[in-house]
């Protein structure tokens, strides 16, 4: 990703970094905190490129030999650390430290980027700490994490924290769509979900989402016409598909998106999640007033709240279906 594109995605972060680099006020350690997909790693790479780019302009070119080497992990002065297995181990930090006992192979500045820094074992983090305290040569450390609170306090206090905004839905959609076996429909839904469940593979996740989406379409069709069919679908399919609290919460989100689409149609907006259902949505939208749609949205939100309060899943869903049918 280019500097400009990143500036568009994370304007606050990028202009902050740009300012400190222009003024030569780069900290020796940063914590980049933000959700997956927010562009932490790309930003760290851009920062490194900015230091080594042969073009030496305000923005790294991304094309020159130095920029390419950084992108491909071939730069001897830009090092990466990432979890081996579940965690980043002490031996890995020690390897890194050993590298720093040498004079640079090519340049004076050395940069290291630690991905999932919160997954350092305690002893790895302690080793790193000593190193953060007393860098012997010009060093830039960038620690990437989804949650800086999981880092040792002492590490947090030695680094400048930069918070990334959550990735835009559009960017999330693009990232999901780049995944194995994830089509446009699944990516569009996944991008909008606040939490993405764990599945054995990315393809399996996409498959699960698409099936869930079909259930939403079936349920919304039935609930407004034949409640007993909807109750049957609930029993036969819905509760088996969204089999635990976390999954059911996602099911409710997907249901919520459908009714939100009804509102979008009413307002003539293009932001429609179930874009291939436009005809059906338009037909249903004619039957409901705006207030009636809002009442249903509220019912779903209330169901989500009750779910969090440990309500029985089946009773909660049955109750919701009745509300969706009646609109009160």
């Amino acid at each position, binding site marked *: 990703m280019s500097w400009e594109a990143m500036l568009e995605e994370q304007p606050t972060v990028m202009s902050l970094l740009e300012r400190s680099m222009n003024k030569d006020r780069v900290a020796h350690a940063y914590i980049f905190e933000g959700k997956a997909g927010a562009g932490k790693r790309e930003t760290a790479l851009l920062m490194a490129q900015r230091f080594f780019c042969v073009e030496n302009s305000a923005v790294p070119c991304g094309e020159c030999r130095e920029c390419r080497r950084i992108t491909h992990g071939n730069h001897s002065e830009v090092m990466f650390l990432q979890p081996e297995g579940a965690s980043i181990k002490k031996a890995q930090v020690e390897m890194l430290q050993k590298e720093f006992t040498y004079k640079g192979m090519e340049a004076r500045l050395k940069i290291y980027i630690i991905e999932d820094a919160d997954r350092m*074992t*305690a*002893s790895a*983090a302690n080793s790193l700490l000593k190193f953060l305290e007393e860098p012997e040569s010009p060093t830039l450390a960038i620690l990437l994490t989804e949650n800086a609170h*999981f880092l*040792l306090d002492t590490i947090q206090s030695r680094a400048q924290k930069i918070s990334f905004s959550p990735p835009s839905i559009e960017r999330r959609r693009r990232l999901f769509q780049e995944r194995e076996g994830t089509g446009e429909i699944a990516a569009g839904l996944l991008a909008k979900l606040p939490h993405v469940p764990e599945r054995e593979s990315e393809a399996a996740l996409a498959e699960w989402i698409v099936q869930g989406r079909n259930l939403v379409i079936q349920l919304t069709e039935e609930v407004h016409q034949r409640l007993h069919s909807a109750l049957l679908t609930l029993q036969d399919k819905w509760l088996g598909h969204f089999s635990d609290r976390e999954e059911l919460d996602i099911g409710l989100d997907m249901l919520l998106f459908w009714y939100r689409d009804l509102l979008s149609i009413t307002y003539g907006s293009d932001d429609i999640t179930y874009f291939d259902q436009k005809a059906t949505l338009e037909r249903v939208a004619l039957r409901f007033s705006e207030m009636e749609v809002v009442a249903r949205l509220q019912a779903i939100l209330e169901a989500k709240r009750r779910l969090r309060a440990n309500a029985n899943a089946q009773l909660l869903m049955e109750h919701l279906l009745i509300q969706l049918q009646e609109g009160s």
Partner: protein
Amino acid sequence: MKQEEQKLRKIIHIDMDAFFASIEQRDQPRLRNKPLVVGGSPWSRGVVATCSYEARPYGIHSAMSSYEAYRRCPEAIFIKGNMEKYREVSREIMAIFHNCTDLVEPLSLDEAYLDVTENHWNMPSATLAAKEIRRRIYQKTGLTASAGVSYNKFLAKTASDYDKPDGLTVITPDRADAFVKALSIGDFRGVGKVTKRKFDSLGIETGEDLQQLSEARLVELFHKQGHVFYRQARGIDERSVNPERERKSLGKETTLSQDLLLVQDMLPVIEELLDQVLARLKKDGIRAKCIVLKIKFADFQQITRRSTLEHPSNDRSELLEALRLLLEEGASGGDPVRLLGVTASEFYGPGEVTGGRGKVYKTVNYEQLRLF
């Protein structure tokens, strides 16, 4: 020593009555005749160190959580206590013991064994010596102590418990058997909750019941400890009063200010405890070969995990790494943890490389000097 010679020894066990609480009641008249708890505040997750006799009918006892004590007796007065003062009083008491005999084995600030077979007061009667000690303690400190007198440690200690507070119980060799028979099984040394349950299931309730079990059967049930039970049931205890009883272990523990879930949050606490233990080890110039981690969970379930090192060590990073592994093993289940403890044991002196067995030559300590 033969059995008969054993019976000629004269051992006293002295145990101060509600030591910390009595000192406070002595010094603060407003606390007298009231249920008093010395220890942590009920709101700060502390535990009861001692409580006054007035508090005991409510079921309050030491090591119970202060909150539980509060629940049982809301009108109790909770005070934090002043260890410095208690240590000072303890020194006064210990001075009295040493005035009587050189063979004093302190068990804690307020408790000690004395071997008075021969004593500086030239008293042939251990009972008289015990009386004199109790008198001097009261005169000097205004506090009462309970004493047990017998011919070995086990009986003396059991006796001091028999008539508490302010009691003196003597068990002569001819009365020992009857005394042991009458003990309830929980009074025997080494009988904790688990062992008690095992005895209960066997229908063993008293010393007399215990005497019915053969040594072989006891060993089968309790391994090494079986021998000890067998001998205790017959009033035999050959341990001598050891004035220089070596510390077998050294530990520090702390109740957390809030329950912790994550290993990484517990580590700083462990580090702090380790540093306290290490400070002591280093002062004494000793190294430990075994390090033990204690974890008490929020539901008061307690586990200990130990790690034996390759060599005795007092190296911070080495011990910390061992503790970290124990912690990850013991506390990564995600159950909230309320107390953490670190104990070092199996001590070695500065020059000892292996255990002290069969040394022909004197151990010499080495220190490689540095050029710079």
